[in-house]
């Protein structure tokens, strides 16, 4: 059965590409911000499907969780607070539009020419990865690249995530420091939302952990699992079943940095124990990787959820009702 040549999915390629392009064009040109953001969530879903067709389910998972889910929530809440299309600048002159359009067309054509004219025996690192993959005892080549072969990138990336939370928090007003983020606190939830907030997070918790765990051998991993967990935390905060922790909560701060920190410590000790920075001693490779990945999942989940929740704010600053006083923190 799997030996058949599969011509059929290709029928979807051109429609998928056209739909992505059309949607992108529409959301660039449409008048209302909110309509554009709704279009953008649909675009995120589409691109997730495109990544499946490009053979990388790992990226598709990340794109679906971030682009389709969390990004939509973030942007729609932004639209709600910024107002829908009230700050539109006047439309640019026709000549300007024409010139810029031509410029963009030139960029596109140049890039397309490059893409179509790529060298024919494509350079590939598949074999190089496959050769050394056994050392990591991981079945998923992408995970092997992330955690071992290009570990520096991954380390820096998780540091960037922690830094992003710090930058975000620093946007809060001075008086609000030490308080909770309130971007997701949008008033009492409707009964349907409440039902969703009660039933979905347990399922999402299982899915997130499953994604993380299966990531060793199948598509999935800390980023994908962490994104799902963060989405569930955001849902809980949205329904007021829990509140985001205050920004001076040391446990939260520990959660943000434990991933990069552990990664860094193990990486540094690799200088002594193994023979390089971020090298793993051969006997302990798998357990060490598992340890790092667990911490990383936790940190990514906490950081992403806090990024959606926004900077700390004073209670009354958002014209919501009274702040809920439910249990103070939610693990996510």
């Amino acid at each position, binding site marked *: 059965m799997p030996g058949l040549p599969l011509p059929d999915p290709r029928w979807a390629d051109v429609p998928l590409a056209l739909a992505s392009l059309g949607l992108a064009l529409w959301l660039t*040109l449409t008048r209302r911000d909110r309509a554009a953001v709704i279009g953008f969530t649909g675009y995120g879903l589409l691109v997730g499907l495109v990544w499946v067709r490009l053979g990388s389910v790992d990226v598709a998972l990340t794109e679906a969780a971030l682009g389709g889910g969390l990004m939509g929530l973030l942007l729609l809440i932004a639209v709600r607070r910024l107002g*829908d299309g009230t700050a539109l600048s006047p439309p640019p002159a026709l000549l300007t539009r024409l010139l810029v359009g031509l410029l963009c067309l030139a960029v596109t054509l140049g890039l397309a020419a490059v893409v179509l004219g790529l060298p024919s025996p494509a350079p590939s690192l598949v074999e190089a990865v496959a050769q050394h993959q056994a050392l990591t005892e991981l079945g998923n080549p992408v995970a092997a690249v992330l955690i071992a072969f290009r570990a520096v990138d991954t380390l820096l990336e998780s540091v960037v995530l922690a830094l992003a939370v710090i930058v975000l928090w620093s946007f809060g007003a001075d008086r609000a420091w030490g308080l909770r983020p309130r971007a997701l606190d949008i008033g009492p939830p*409707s009964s*349907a*939302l409440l039902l969703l907030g009660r039933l*979905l997070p347990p399922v999402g918790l299982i899915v997130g952990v499953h994604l993380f765990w299966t990531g060793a051998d199948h598509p999935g991993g800390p980023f994908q699992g962490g994104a799902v967990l963060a989405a569930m935390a955001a849902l809980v905060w949205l329904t007021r079943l829990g509140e985001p922790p205050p920004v001076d909560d040391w446990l939260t701060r520990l959660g943000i940095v434990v991933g990069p920190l552990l990664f860094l410590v193990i990486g540094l000790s690799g200088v002594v124990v193994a023979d390089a920075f971020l090298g793993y001693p051969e006997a302990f490779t798998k357990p060490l990787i598992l340890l790092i990945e667990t911490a990383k999942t936790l940190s990514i989940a906490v950081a992403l959820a806090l990024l959606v929740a926004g900077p700390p704010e004073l209670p009354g600053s958002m014209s919501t009702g009274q702040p809920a006083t439910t249990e103070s923190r939610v693990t996510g």
Partner: protein
Amino acid sequence: MSLANAFTMVFVSLGALAFFASWVGLLRFPDALSRLHALSKADNLGLGLVVVGLLPQASWPFGVLKLVALWLVSVLIGGATGQMLAGVIHANAGQISDDRETRPDTGAKSAARANPETAS
């Protein structure tokens, strides 16, 4: 084996039909609430039929469980979001925001690109 395959074919076809019907409904129904009705058919019936059809093909313990869990999640989300959307539509019934009420009828395919941007 062939019985299972026939089962799959029947149910998956029905599911695809439900998606098609739902699409037609989304396109042709007059107002937002009846379109919501059409959408919920895709959520529950279409996906449900596809899942039922795929059950004989799934690996026994975990594949089947995953499929069933997926359908349950989808029904839960579909139901809850449908309720919320209906609430919003209902609350805004008089002034559903943005576009002019360009009661779109036929020939939608060609006009799709231009339509939202006319009359600025």
